[in-house]
């Protein structure tokens, strides 16, 4: 049934009044963020090998890495090995554009997205988070969301299943 415009206007406003309002009372009530929200980047220092991929791929050049090499004394019958030790890992969030390339590119899962977003500062220099602060964000990283039931399965799963079926047949 076609309602006259004037009546429809009244119906719309009254209907809206009956529904829940969309206002979020942010400082009082924390927002429910969608999964994979990009709040801040967390660093898992143990996984970092100072490969510098993140710093090189960063479009804004906002990741600063310093390191030195450390020699591990030779174990019995072996030879001395060297390993990289991270001295400095800074992300300047005043430059960061939250593209997430560093996280994508990290081959050793040392960087993660955390949904925390309340880290504004009065001084822009304080937006550069050192490795300790980036490490603290690790505690706020949520477990990865479950796979979508109806999504495309990973190729590896199919390959493994095929191989298993073949083995069973024989």
């Amino acid at each position, binding site marked *: 049934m076609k309602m006259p415009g*004037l009546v429809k*206007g*009244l119906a*719309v*406003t*009254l209907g*809206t*009044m009956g*529904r829940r*309002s*969309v*206002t979020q*009372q942010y400082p009082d009530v924390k927002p429910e963020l969608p999964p994979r929200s990009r709040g801040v980047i967390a660093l898992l220092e143990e996984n970092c090998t100072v490969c510098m991929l993140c710093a090189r791929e960063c479009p804004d050049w906002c990741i600063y890495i310093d390191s030195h090499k450390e020699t591990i004394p030779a174990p019995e019958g072996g030879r001395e090995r060297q390993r990289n030790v991270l001295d400095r890992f800074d992300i300047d969030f005043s430059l960061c554009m939250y593209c997430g390339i560093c996280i994508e590119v990290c081959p050793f899962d040392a960087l993660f997205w955390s949904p925390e977003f309340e880290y504004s500062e009065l001084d822009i220099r304080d937006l550069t988070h050192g490795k300790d602060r980036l490490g603290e964000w690790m505690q706020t990283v949520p477990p990865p969301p479950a796979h979508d039931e109806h999504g495309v399965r990973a190729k590896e799963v199919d390959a493994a299943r095929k191989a298993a079926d073949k083995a069973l047949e024989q």
Partner: protein
Amino acid sequence: MTELLEVVLRLALILVAFLTLPLLVGQAEHKAMAHMQSRLGPMYAGGFHGWAQLVADGVKFAQKEDLVPAAADRTVFKLAPAVGLIPYLVVLVAIPVAPGRVAQELDAGIFFVIAVMGIGVLGSLMAGWASANKYSLLGGLRSAAQLMAYELPFLLAAASVAMAAGTLSLSGIVEAWEPWWLLWQLPGGVVFFIAGLAELQRPPFDMPVADSEIIFGAYTEYTGLRFALFLLAEYVGIVVLAALTTVLFLGGWKGPFDTALGGAPGVVWTLVKIFALSFVVIWLRVSYPRLREDQLQRLAWQGLVPVALGQLALTGVVAVAIS
């Protein structure tokens, strides 16, 4: 002595109603309008859902500097808010809320009420002329044009009820009122309500204060308490209009259940009707965009006046047929 005491008591009650009902309507507007726009409205003032928002606003207005523009006509400028507000207070005196419950019973109550309500608009006219501001002047002139256009259907609709009831007394009209009048006087009631809205310059008839084109019309130069008085006048105006419509067209204190049979007392019915109509005023404000000046005039002269005249004729015919 007791007589004097009674008069004082009645006037005190009127004053209390004058100061509280508009605040209730204002708060209801804050909240209803917010929820109609999917917002929450005030939430902080007073702690619980911002119930004290208007109190806080009042305190803020009282703290502000009282400015009078250098070129303004000082006396008129300062007098205007009072002229805009006091008529509504006076009108409240004549409105019956229950059988015999009226501050001052007037034989020609309907005349008195409509004459005095017309003065209220003079307040914004005075403000517009005295402000020495082009926008104020434009707003004032628009107020004048609107008053001219809508006073006529307003009067005609009220006259129709008076004719139907055969009395000019507001209490008398309610006494004579019967439920089937809702249908008989429906066009008149709608015209009365719409014309009243336009006289209050409530949206969608707020062309005189159209903030997107003439800042705030006649009230542009006002600050602090004087501005608050104008705002208060608008909300008292809503209460008065709702009360008048209740008394004239909705049967005042008469409810669907008789008081003697355990129904609610008359005052409750009156208040329920007043608040329901006030809600409609708010609802209309949220739902409709502002009418352009020419649309506004056309609605009055080509829409409301003919309908009101038709209602008058219908009332006359039916009234004669009944008697």
